[in-house]
C-alpha cells in the first residue's frame, strides 16, 4: 500500500470512484490478501491463529459500530446487546431446528438488524448523550430479556451449546479451519462495508452526520436512513455474535455485557471514526494490547520485581498501561490509528518531494 504518484491524473469518473485509486494499490491489497488467507494459516501455529481469530471477529463488530457511530454520527452503547441477539438467534436455530450455519448466521444478523432498527427509533428526536442513554437502556433491556426468558436463553443458565459449523460434512473445529470460516465472513463484511460507504446510502449517512438539515433538504429521508444505519450496524453486530457463538461453541449472555460495548467503542475511537481500515486497526490494537503488555511485563518485569510480586503486579500494571497507551495514542493522533497510517502513507506517496 506504499504507492507513489505526483499529482492527480484521474481523467474519468470510473478512475475517481474506484475502490483503489491506483493500480498499484490493487496489487498491494491482493498481496495482503494472499498473506492473510494463504500464508498466515500455513506459517502460524494454533496459538497465533487463535489471536488472529479473535481479531477477525472483533473487526466485524468494530466495522459495524463504525458504520453507525463513525459514518452516521449516531452513538450506541448497546452494540454488545445486538451481538447477543444474533448469538441467541443462531444458537436457537442451530440447536432446535438443526439449521446449518449458512442459514443461522444471516438469520442472526437479520434478527439483530430488526431489533437494532427498533432501538434506533429514538434517534430521530434525540442526539448525543441522550441517544447514548437510550441505547444503554436497550442494552440492559435486551440483557434482562435474554436472562429471564428461558424460551430464548435455553434454560436457567442462559447458555446454549452449539455444534461446530460443518461444511460438506467436515466439522470445522481446529483453529485453522475456524480461521478460514471466520475469515470468509470477515472478508464479506469488509468488502460489503467498503462498498456501502461509497454508495448512495453511504453518502446519505455521511450527510446526516455532517449536516443533518442540509441532508434533509437534499431529499434524504433522515428517519429512514438513521434506522437503516442502526439496522446495518446491528446486522454486523449480530453476525459478530454468531461468529463468536460458532467459534466458542456456546452462546452465553455474559460474553455480551456492557463492558463489551465499551470495548468496541474504544476500538473505533482508537482506530479512527468513519474509517473501515481504522475499525480493523482498532480491533487489532484492543485485542493485542493486553497480550503485548503481558509479554513485555513478563519479559522485562523481573528486572524490577521478584516473581511473587510480579504475579500480582502484571495484571494491575497491564490495566494501567492499557489506559495510558490509549491516552498516548489519542493525544498523538486524535483522529485515530487510521489517520496515523494515512500520514505515513501520504509522506511516502510523494516522497522525496514534499509539497
Amino acid at each position, binding site marked *: 500500500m506504499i504507492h507513489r504518484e505526483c499529482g492527480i491524473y484521474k481523467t474519468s469518473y470510473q478512475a475517481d470512484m474506484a475502490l483503489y485509486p491506483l493500480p498499484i494499490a490493487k496489487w498491494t491489497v491482493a498481496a495482503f490478501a494472499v498473506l492473510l488467507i494463504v500464508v498466515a494459516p500455513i506459517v502460524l501455529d494454533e*496459538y497465533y491463529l487463535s489471536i488472529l481469530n*479473535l481479531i477477525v471477529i472483533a473487526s466485524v463488530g468494530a466495522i459495524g459500530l463504525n458504520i453507525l457511530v463513525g459514518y452516521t454520527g449516531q452513538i450506541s452503547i448497546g452494540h454488545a446487546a445486538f451481538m447477543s441477539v444474533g448469538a441467541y438467534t443462531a444458537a436457537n436455530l442451530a440447536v432446535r431446528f438443526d439449521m446449518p450455519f449458512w442459514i443461522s448466521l444471516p438469520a442472526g444478523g437479520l434478527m439483530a438488524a430488526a431489533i437494532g432498527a427498533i432501538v434506533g427509533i429514538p434517534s430521530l428526536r434525540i442526539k448525543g448523550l441522550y441517544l447514548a442513554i437510550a441505547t444503554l437502556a436497550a442494552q440492559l433491556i435486551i440483557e434482562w430479556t435474554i436472562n429471564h426468558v428461558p424460551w430464548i436463553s435455553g434454560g*436457567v*443458565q442462559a447458555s446454549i451449546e452449539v455444534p461446530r459449523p460443518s461444511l460438506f460434512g467436515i466439522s470445522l473445529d481446529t483453529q485453522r479451519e475456524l480461521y478460514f470460516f471466520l475469515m470468509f465472513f470477515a472478508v464479506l463484511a469488509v468488502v460489503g462495508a467498503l462498498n456501502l460507504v461509497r454508495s448512495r446510502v453511504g453518502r446519505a449517512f455521511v450527510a446526516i452526520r455532517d449536516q443533518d438539515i442540509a441532508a434533509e433538504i437534499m431529499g434524504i429521508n433522515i428517519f429512514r436512513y438513521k434506522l437503516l444505519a442502526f439496522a446495518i450496524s446491528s446486522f454486523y453486530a449480530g453476525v459478530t455474535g454468531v461468529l463468536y457463538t460458532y467459534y*466458542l461453541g*456456546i452462546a452465553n449472555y455474559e*460474553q455480551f455485557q456492557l463492558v463489551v460495548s465499551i470495548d468496541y467503542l474504544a476500538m473505533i475511537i482508537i482506530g479512527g471514526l468513519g474509517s473501515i481500515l481504522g475499525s480493523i486497526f482498532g480491533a487489532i490494537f484492543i485485542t493485542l494490547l493486553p497480550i503485548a503488555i503481558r509479554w513485555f511485563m513478563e519479559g522485562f518485569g523481573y528486572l524490577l520485581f521478584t516473581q511473587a510480586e510480579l504475579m500480582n503486579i502484571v495484571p494491575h500494571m497491564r*490495566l494501567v498501561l492499557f489506559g495510558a497507551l490509549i491516552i498516548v495514542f489519542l493525544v498523538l493522533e486524535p483522529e485515530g490509528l487510521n489517520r496515523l497510517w494515512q500520514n505515513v502513507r501520504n509522506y511516502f506517496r510523494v516522497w522525496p518531494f514534499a509539497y
Partner: protein
Amino acid sequence: MRPRFLLSGLGLLAGMAVTATPALAQSEIVVGLMCDRTGPTQTVGVFMCPGYHDYINLVNSKGGVEGHKIRAIEIDNEYKVPQAVESYQLFKKEGAVLVGLYGTPQTQALTQKLTEDKIPGTAPGFGTASAADGIRYPYVFPIAATYWSQGAAAVQHAKSQLGGLEGKKIAYIYYDNPAGREPLPILEDLEKIEGFELRTFAVPPPGVEMGPQVLDITRRFRADFVISHLFGRAPSVSIKEFKRSGYPLDKIVSFVWGHSEADIQAAGGWEATEGYSGIQFAGVGTDYAVLDDIRAMYKAEGKDAPKEMDSTVYYNRGVLIAAVHVEAIGNAVKAKGGGDISGEDVKAGLESIKDFSLTGLVPPLEVTPADHEGGGWVQVFRVKGGKFEAVGDWFRAYPEVLAKHLKAERS
C-alpha cells in the same frame, strides 16, 4: 518468548536463583491457571491465586510430584472471554496437561475446546451444575460442590438447625443472574419432599440495595430460615440489612461466594456478624497442617508468611485447587510410569481421586468418570468469637435428588 519460559519456571522455584536447566525443564509438567486478580472478581483472585502458587511451590520444594516439578503458568483474564480464549491457547502451546479455569462464562466458552483438545479443566465454584456429569462433559471437572449440591446442603443445614422442616418457612434470596437461579429446581423439589414453604426473593444487579427484599423476608413472610446466594458487595449488604431488621444471623446460611473474611469486614467485622453461617467446599481457617508447611517453607527462605494467608476462605480454596491438580498429576504419573503424561492421562488421574484429605482442608472427594463433582461435599462454617468455626463435619445432602436432576438434564 524465551524470557517467559525461564521466568515461569523461576516462579515455581519461589524466588530461588536462576537454575532452570534444560534437564529439569524436560521433566516439568505444565499446568495453566487462569486467575483474575483484576476485573469484577478480583476480590477472590487476589487471595486464591497466591494460595494456588504457594501449594505448588511447596510441592516443588519437596521434590515435585513423583520427582517431576510442576510449572504453573498464571494468566489474568480480567473476567473477559476473548482473553480467556487466548490464554487457553497459550497454555496449550506451552504443553499444559491441565487447566485451572476461572469464571462461569470463560468455563462455558472453553468447554467445547477442552473436549476437542482432550485437556481437562477444573472449575470449582464456576460453570453449570450439569458439568458434574462426567459423561456429558468429559473434560470439565467442578471438583467441588455445585450450586445444586450447595442448595441441597443448605436445606439440610436448615433442617438440622430447626430440627425438622415440616411446615417451616424458608426464604431464598439470590442475585438475579443465571448462577443465582440455578439452585431453584432443587429447592423447589426439596420443598415438596420436606414439606416446607419456599419463597424466593431476587436481588437485581448490582445488588447493593436489598432493603425491600429483607423487609419482605423478615416482616411479611417471617421466614424461619434464610438461604442466601449473593456475589460481590451484595453479601455484606445483606448481612447489614438482616442485622438492622433484627433477624438472627445464625438463621442464615450463605452459598460459597458470600462468606469470606472480606464479606465479614465489609459487613462490620466479626462481632457485628456473630452467627452468620456459610457453606464451604474447602476448609476454612488456619488449623491445617498443610498451611503450617507453607509457613515453614516461607520461614526457611527467611520470609514472613504472605498476608494473603489471613484471608483463609479464598486462600484455602487456591490451596485446594492446587492440591487436586497435584493429586491428579500424581495419579497420572503413577499410572503412566513416567512424566510424559497427556491431558487424557490427567483426566484419568482426576477421575481416580479418592481418599485424600490434605490434613482436613479438602473434603473426602471421590471423583469418578461419571461424577466430576466428587460427591458434592460441603462443610458449614459460622462466625464465632472472631473467626470461622466449623458446624459439624463434611457432609453431602440429598444425593438421590441431585442424581435424579442430573439424569433429567442429560436427556
